[in-house]
């Protein structure tokens, strides 16, 4: 009786997650592994190997990897600088990175068009400074920029949290035992923030890999990513079977990422929140 009462509060969530998380995922697999007549087939998955699809997938992987690396390289020093500031500023820092989300994500990304255009703000400034113009609008570079812009906070926050958690005396202990600043960083600080880094990579890589909006808005219609292919199969071609099949391929990458993060972050310490 007691046991039952303890579990009772979980019931709504239990039903909710079965109905809206697990069953829908099963349906993606069902559609992905059948054809229009309902017969089992691997064709929708093998379809990733066609020239058009594999090109989109490779480009997506390349761009999202580049964006993830750039985010990591930008975020780590930033998080360290923010962390070295004294006082309980945690909420302020979270606030600064969450605030942009209150301006619509599509509008913010579109604003980059205005900034990047041939006669846009950035080029006006560059020509004023007599610097060569930046012509990256409607190119893969612009897409990478859009990815970095949109997902940077998801890299900064987990790394910042991981850094903030490190006891100052642990760093002092390393110095005390003879480590110079570089040794302190590589032997103590960096290993202790691995959960944050892994969590950050997940939070940037997955949405970047699967985006179709950023490529639509900043890549013109010239650049096709795997996300665009899937989206078109669902909204324009209405070929749910093929769209689902390609989604399963995407989920393989997501699963791979989850396994990697589970290995590095056993206690689920790295978190944005």
């Amino acid at each position: 009786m007691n046991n039952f009462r303890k579990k009772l509060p979980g019931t709504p969530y239990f039903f909710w997650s079965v109905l809206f998380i697990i069953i829908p995922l099963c349906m993606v697999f069902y559609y992905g592994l059948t054809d229009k007549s309902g017969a089992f087939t691997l064709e929708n998955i093998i379809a990733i190997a066609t020239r058009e699809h594999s090109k989109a997938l490779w480009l997506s992987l390349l761009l999202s990897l580049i964006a993830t690396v750039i985010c990591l390289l930008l975020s780590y020093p930033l998080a360290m600088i923010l962390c070295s500031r004294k006082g309980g500023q945690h909420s302020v820092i979270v606030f600064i990175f969450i605030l942009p989300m209150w301006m619509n994500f599509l509008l913010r990304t579109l604003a980059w068009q205005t900034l990047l255009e041939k006669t846009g703000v950035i080029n006006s400034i560059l020509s004023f400074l007599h610097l060569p113009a930046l012509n990256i609008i409607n190119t893969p570079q612009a897409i990478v920029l859009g990815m970095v812009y949109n997902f940077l906070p998801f890299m900064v926050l987990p790394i910042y949290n991981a850094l903030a958690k490190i006891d100052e005396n642990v760093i002092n202990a390393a110095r005390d035992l003879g480590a110079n600043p570089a040794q302190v960083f590589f032997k103590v600080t960096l290993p202790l923030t691995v959960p944050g880094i892994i969590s950050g990579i997940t939070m940037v890589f997955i949405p970047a890999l699967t985006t179709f909006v950023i490529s639509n808005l900043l890549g013109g219609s010239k650049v096709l990513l795997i996300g665009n292919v899937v989206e078109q199969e669902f909204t324009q071609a209405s070929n749910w079977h093929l769209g689902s099949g390609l989604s399963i391929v995407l989920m393989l990458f997501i699963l791979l990422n989850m396994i990697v993060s589970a290995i590095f972050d056993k206690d689920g310490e790295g978190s944005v929140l």
Partner: protein
Amino acid sequence: MNKKLIDLQHITKSFDGQMILDDLNLYIRENEFLTLLGPSGCGKTTTLRILGGFETPDQGHVIFDDQDITKLPPNKRQLNTVFQKYALFTHMTIAENIAFGLKIKNKSKSYINDKIAYALKLVNLEGYGSRMPDSLSGGQQQRIAIARAIVNEPKVLLLDEPLGALDLKLRQDMQYELIRLKNELGITFIYVTHDQEEALTMSDTIVVMNQGYIQQIGSPEKIYNEPENAFVADFIGDSNIIGGTMIEDKLVEILSARFPCVDTGFGTNRPVDVVIRPEDVILSSPANGRLTGTVTHLIFKGVHYEMEVTTPDGYEWLVHSTGMYPVGTQVGIDVDPFNIQIMHKPASEDEEAVKIDE
């Protein structure tokens, strides 16, 4: 006497305009077990951090082995620290924790392995090398923190309230362990604590600090038996600190009763503070005492009874005695002359002994 190993000269340090240490002068001899004792905020930890190299003093010099190391970073100093709450590297095994300093000094593998085995044996944790710090109890983690520091063969070990997070029994065990370690290693220990009992048990020398000033330096016996001012008397053990008048040499008046004592040189009819330890108060029948009072509280403490005796003028005496007097009993109070410690009254308001905040 051993030679001076460390000399702190005119150390001044303030944070955000608040003075933490004001012209502190202190030397530490080789092989000494020196304890910095005081309430929180007295500057003891800052002193230790200046020694470790984690803070730079605003003014003054730190001389170590005749060398000025004031501006030397921590990684270049021949001292090691055992931190409050251990500060172990949670991403490394115990063995890797202990090997940390040695690997940085590029010691050979066999040397490192020998040292790990030696250190684990020294702290009675043989066979724990491959465990992770999280799987150890607080006391065990503390020993690893000590082992991690001493394998580097420092000339001085700095200990920052290392037993603060442990429970009473464990703390007592670790006190003996630390004394044993110090004797085996033959190095200097500088120990920071706010626990006066810990300080009395382990130290060769105690430095009592308050509000950035050194109040008294001396052996545990000296600090306990002959506190130099009311702060030290109050901080070290329980005491009755009573305002009195020095009538003449070797005679003091307390609460309008005259007590013979052994102190001289205070002048005649001068106001003084009188310190009497609770275990030095002798209770007897009212007729045999110099003062009479009523027992107002009684607690059994195991080794002795703790009583509160209120004299007619309202002063509450703290008394430790093996004899038991029930609440309400009229008793006489007496004190042996050599157990009465006379102290100068603070000359100004400014010098007034400060309240202890813990």
